[in-house]
């Protein structure tokens, strides 16, 4: 697929950017309009960060803002290669953690969209779809950029 010139790709990319961006902003909003400590309790349940260290507070306080920023960048199309890649990496991290928690038999909250949502095959399928969308955007924007560079060099 010619990512830079295909009309279909451009429309698809626009739709993916808006949907993915909106979901990231919504997820951030749900966490930010409550105390960061609620999100901290969800993170703590995974058992990957020390409960009484600064890392838990750092992640609980900053991750939602990163989600919000990514959401805005995706919708605006700003720094698309970077934001799409970062979004894909983030989703991969989330899915990895959820899979690990399930394998450990932990019956805990996902922490994806505020508190109270348990990790289930539905949450994993949903996040898997978001990962696929982010990957598609990331690959598309990288390929598009590469093609543009090649065309510049041969011109």
């Amino acid at each position: 697929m010619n990512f830079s010139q295909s009309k279909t790709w451009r429309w698809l990319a626009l739709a993916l950017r808006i949907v993915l961006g909106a979901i990231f902003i919504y997820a951030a909003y749900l966490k930010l309009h409550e105390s960061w400590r609620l999100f901290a309790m969800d993170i703590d349940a995974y058992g990957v960060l020390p409960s009484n260290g600064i890392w838990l507070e750092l992640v609980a306080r900053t991750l939602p803002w990163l989600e919000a920023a990514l959401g805005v960048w995706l919708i605006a199309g700003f720094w698309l290669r970077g934001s799409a890649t970062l979004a894909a990496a983030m989703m991969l991290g989330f899915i990895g953690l959820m899979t690990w928690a399930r394998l450990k038999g932990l019956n805990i909250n996902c922490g994806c969209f505020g508190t109270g949502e348990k990790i289930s095959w539905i949450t994993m399928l949903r996040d898997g779809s978001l990962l696929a969308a982010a990957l598609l955007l990331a690959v598309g924007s990288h390929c598009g950029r590469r093609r543009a560079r090649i065309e510049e060099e041969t011109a």
Partner: protein
Amino acid sequence: MVSMKLCALVLAALLPGFAASTGPAKGQGFGSPNAPILIEVFSDFECPGCKLFHTQFRPLLVRDYVTVGKVYLVAHDLSFHAHSNEATAYALAAARIGKYDEVADALYEHQTEWSASGKVWDTVAAVLSPAEQKKVSALAKDPGVLAEVKSETDDGKTKIQRTPTILVIRGMKQYRFEGSPKWEIFRDWLNELLTK
């Protein structure tokens, strides 16, 4: 005139429903009902996670928030396991003679033993005087107590999926926790909630 009477009749019929939907369903209440935060705990005497909650989390909650009037704690005892129905009946019977705490503490402390052997009464009787044993033993068979055991469990099934589940209610907002969160983080969050 007729329509006004009809409205009054309809309102009168609906009022009990409104009353039932505003406070917590039964359970055992601890602390002041006027406390700014209501915490409802749904637990099962035979659930290991509930034992952890009761022995480690609950004492801190009671010490720092319930006794000082910041939290009204309502405990709902559900029966999801093989012997928890009997255990709950004894606990609710004990509640009727003011011995709920002693019996609940004993049931959780010796959970492993009576869960394996099925000898719930031995654990309960150990913390009661002979006179109290007689009363609790009789009350545990009382239709009113058995109905309460059933209604707590049926009500719990509509509200929760696992035990322990903690519902924290402040005004119109409700927060749900399944399992026991880390006390230090929960405490700090509760303090923050109290300032809102």
